């Protein structure tokens, strides 16, 4: 064959890197070292003697930990190979991780945080030496206050769920401060609100009441009316919900809560579709949180560190975790003298690298830019919905004919009925094309679910490619179902057996556990 080269076919011919690496313990090579440690100076040795020999009885470890012994280059090579076996939002069209707002985390923000002025800063340094970072966080708080419409913001938490925990902890402290701690024992949420709302409320000691939507998939205000009362501490809801449906009656929900003396807590983990469009406080919420690592463009880091923002009304401000940053003239200080504060929610002052990234992300966009983010994300979502609904066998239950905000929970139920192929199997096969999706949280209220959220970061061409892959896999499900059932074929590893993961006798959670259980080591 010779030039010119034929056009590329419709589907990308993908194969993920496959290195077939052993588990790192198998790479041990006794005597090898990866990095050497600074040695005790002779001056110190002379002064203190053999500190290990001098340890109190029983305090000296009998034999060194059985870590692998490896040359630096081999450690590096191993992990570089593993990294190539991981997809990453930078590498793929990552719209399939719905509810997670997989947007572009700009590389410049990663570069900015790498300065020694941040990396090597200690939290107990003199305030005068940390004015840069304090000022930056203070400004980020103010920006998030404007974005939420709230009075004050705290950035101490390290993720969305712990931020939701912080919401309910503040609410609990509020009711306690009002002498209603014992009376208010229930929290109301909805099934399409993120599970962490239910789970954190439970962890905080509340009984959780979960409401189901009306036939159209909208949150059911009558259901709320039926359960609310003086025993209610708070409603804790996501909006738009995981379905991408915005609750048009949200003000009424908040008013109902307030009418019985409960507070209203807003899970804004994914505010991406409504930035600059509508604000938590304007709907009357007392408290809300953002996932900095979703809406505000910090990387998801294989599952953290993320970062959470808690935004509260003036009434709840005294309960914020401490310390808070104050500004006097040009000087920023830390104020820990806050008697009503719920105290610490994490060490020190939050996930600093992510806070600086988020600050930088907002500063690059400004008010108009944030609104453009939302509008683009929503347009992308509705465009993708149109493409997905063109695939025979796919549907978007609820609110038929209406638009969605930033994401959609779809269903392959029709295709499943026809072919027996599940949503999970389709997702696995999609990975053969370099694509990924996740189904949804349990329970699968929407049958055979999958949840897509395109965000603002992807172009039409990429959304088209994504939809085309799902269409192709759906076609395969009908025409060559074995290919789908035995997938993946172009991946690092093949179909995985889950048999052993739930059986305490057989699970292998660490290498040493595996060795002991299966090799008697």
């Amino acid at each position, binding site marked *: 064959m010779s030039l010119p080269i034929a056009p590329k076919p419709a589907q990308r011919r993908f194969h993920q890197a496959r290195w077939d690496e052993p588990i790192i313990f198998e790479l041990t090579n006794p005597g090898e070292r990866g990095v050497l440690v600074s040695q005790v100076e002779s001056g110190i040795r002379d002064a203190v003697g053999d*500190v290990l020999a001098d340890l109190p009885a029983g305090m000296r470890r009998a034999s060194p930990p059985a870590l692998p012994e490896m040359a630096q280059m081999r450690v590096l090579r191993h992990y570089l190979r593993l990294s190539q076996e*991981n997809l990453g939002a930078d590498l793929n069209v990552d719209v399939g991780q719905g509810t997670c707002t997989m947007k572009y985390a700009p590389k410049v923000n990663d570069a900015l945080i790498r300065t020694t002025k941040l990396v090597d800063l200690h939290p107990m340094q003199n305030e005068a030496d940390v004015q*840069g970072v304090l000022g930056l966080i203070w400004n980020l708080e103010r*920006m998030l206050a404007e974005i939420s419409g709230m009075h004050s913001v705290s950035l101490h938490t390290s993720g969305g769920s712990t931020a939701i*925990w912080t919401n309910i902890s503040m609410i609990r402290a509020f009711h306690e401060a009002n002498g209603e701690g014992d009376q208010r024992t229930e929290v109301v949420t909805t099934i399409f609100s993120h599970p962490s709302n239910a789970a954190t409320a*439970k962890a905080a000691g509340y009984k959780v009441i979960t409401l189901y939507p009306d036939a159209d998939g909208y949150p059911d205000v009558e259901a709320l009316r039926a359960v609310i009362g003086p025993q209610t501490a708070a409603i804790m809801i996501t909006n738009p919900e995981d379905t991408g449906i915005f609750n048009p009656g949200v003000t009424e929900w908040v008013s109902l809560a307030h009418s019985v003396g409960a507070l209203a807590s807003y899970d804004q983990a994914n505010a991406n579709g*409504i930035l600059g469009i509508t604000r938590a406080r304007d709907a009357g919420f007392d408290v809300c949180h953002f996932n900095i690592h979703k809406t505000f463009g910090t990387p998801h880091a294989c599952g953290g560190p993320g970062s959470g923002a808690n935004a509260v009304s003036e009434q709840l401000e005294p309960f914020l975790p401490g310390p808070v940053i104050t500004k006097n003239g040009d000087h920023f200080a830390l104020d820990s003298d806050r008697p009503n504060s719920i105290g610490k*929610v994490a060490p020190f002052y939050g996930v600093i690298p992510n806070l600086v990234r988020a600050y930088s992300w907002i500063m690059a966009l400004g008010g108009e830019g944030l609104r453009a983010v939302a509008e683009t994300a929503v347009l992308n979502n509705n465009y993708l919905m149109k493409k997905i609904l063109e695939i025979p066998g796919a549907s978007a239950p609820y609110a038929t004919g209406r638009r969605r905000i930033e994401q959609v929970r779809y269903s392959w139920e029709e295709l499943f009925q026809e072919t027996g192929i599940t949503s999970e199997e389709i997702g696995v096969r999609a990975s053969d094309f370099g694509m990924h999706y996740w189904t949804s949280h349990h329970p699968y209220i929407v049958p055979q679910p999958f949840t897509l959220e395109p965000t603002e970061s992807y172009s039409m061409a990429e959304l088209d490619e994504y939809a085309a892959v799902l269409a192709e896999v759906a076609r395969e499900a009908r025409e060559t179902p074995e290919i789908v059932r035995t997938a993946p074929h172009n991946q690092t590893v093949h179909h995985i057996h889950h048999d052993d993961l739930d059986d305490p006798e057989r699970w292998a959670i660490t290498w040493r556990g595996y060795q002991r259980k299966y090799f008697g080591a």
Partner: protein
Amino acid sequence: MLAAVGAGSTEDFYADIPASLRLNRPLDLPAPLVAEQDLVRHVEGELNHNVSTKERLSFLGFGTYNHFVPAVVDEVINRSEFLTAYAGEPYEDHGRFQALFQYQSLMAELLNMEVVNVPTYDGFQATATALSMAGRITGRRGVVVCSDVLPDKVSRVDDFVRPNLDLTFVPTIDGTAHVEAIIALLGADTAAVWVETPSCTGAVETAIRQLADAAHAVGAILVVGTDPIGYGALTPPADQGADIVCGDIQALGLHQWFGGAHGGFIAVHDDPRFVMEMPSRLFGLASTDVAGEYGFGDVAYDRTSFALREEGKEWVGTAAALWGIAAGVYLALMGPQGMAELAETILARTTYAQARLGALAGVTLNDNALHLREFVIDLSATGVDSRTVVDRLRPLAIDPGVVVGEYELLVCVTEMTTQHDIDRLTDAIASATASSTTQEKSA
């Protein structure tokens, strides 16, 4: 695209949002810096107002530590594939699963325990959860706190556990547990005995075995909060009877980041009573269709709030996975020998610093415990309070420690602190306190 979806404008998509809720003005935010170079200039300018510990000589610890981070650690966790991944399946994200399984396994070796979680947020959360696990396992409310714990940690833990647990603090003696007093408190309502080692003053607890035996005698669980940095050479708590070991991994390959890079570990023995109470994800080995392929998956997923909402154990969410990968790379680089040497280096330098500072006129060590990395000096006999010492050392670019009392200073020494650094500190404190007491003790 609007046309493709039959929309007139993006307004159409917001039809469900009532007009009353619409923000009909632009958000009031600073003018954007849309050119990357302008953004860089601005953010760099702000950060340049900071003075980093590399520009000073720092003896600050108190929960965040200045340990060396090998370059390979940063190289790995800054790989786009890891940095920007999230929650892919064990197919397209095989690498993440393997890296975290390895993290669990490497930590397990360091701690001599068989089950370690995918990291939770930080050591505070790990401890709060570990105690809560003890409460759930025993069905009891009592927690006896045996050690000096960071006040911030107590604050966090207490707010977290108070629906389910009551903390009782037993003052330490000479820096470590007051064993008799503790034993006297244990009973049928004791869920957990909580030891911190090193304590928040750096004191290493040497009575874990006694405390474990006493706890077990009443059916309680021994929870040890710890920093794993010393276990290359120190006996890990599991060998002394600990049931749950928890703490922070910041010391294992993470930079200081102004206190913004913590991750929490929880380790237990491979006992389903314990494992099933862990809220975090646990990645386990699994076979695949192809012989010799290592597959991975979630162990006992039904423990989690992902599977069971409020019926799961506490909750699981985005926590600190990347830091776990970092700690894994760190441990693989250090190896057994590296961790052993590290512990020795830190121990030796701590001891040396104690000796030098304790020998200064008017300066005493707060206790006689074994210390790793941190210890408190008492300046009262110098007549100069600790804040004044800190102020006097400021122009010398030395941060001598954290003020933990009017005359008490918590000094932190790591493998990054050389003999020369310690000598400089000693001389500086000597001069700073010399105004009041002019005589050095005899050596």
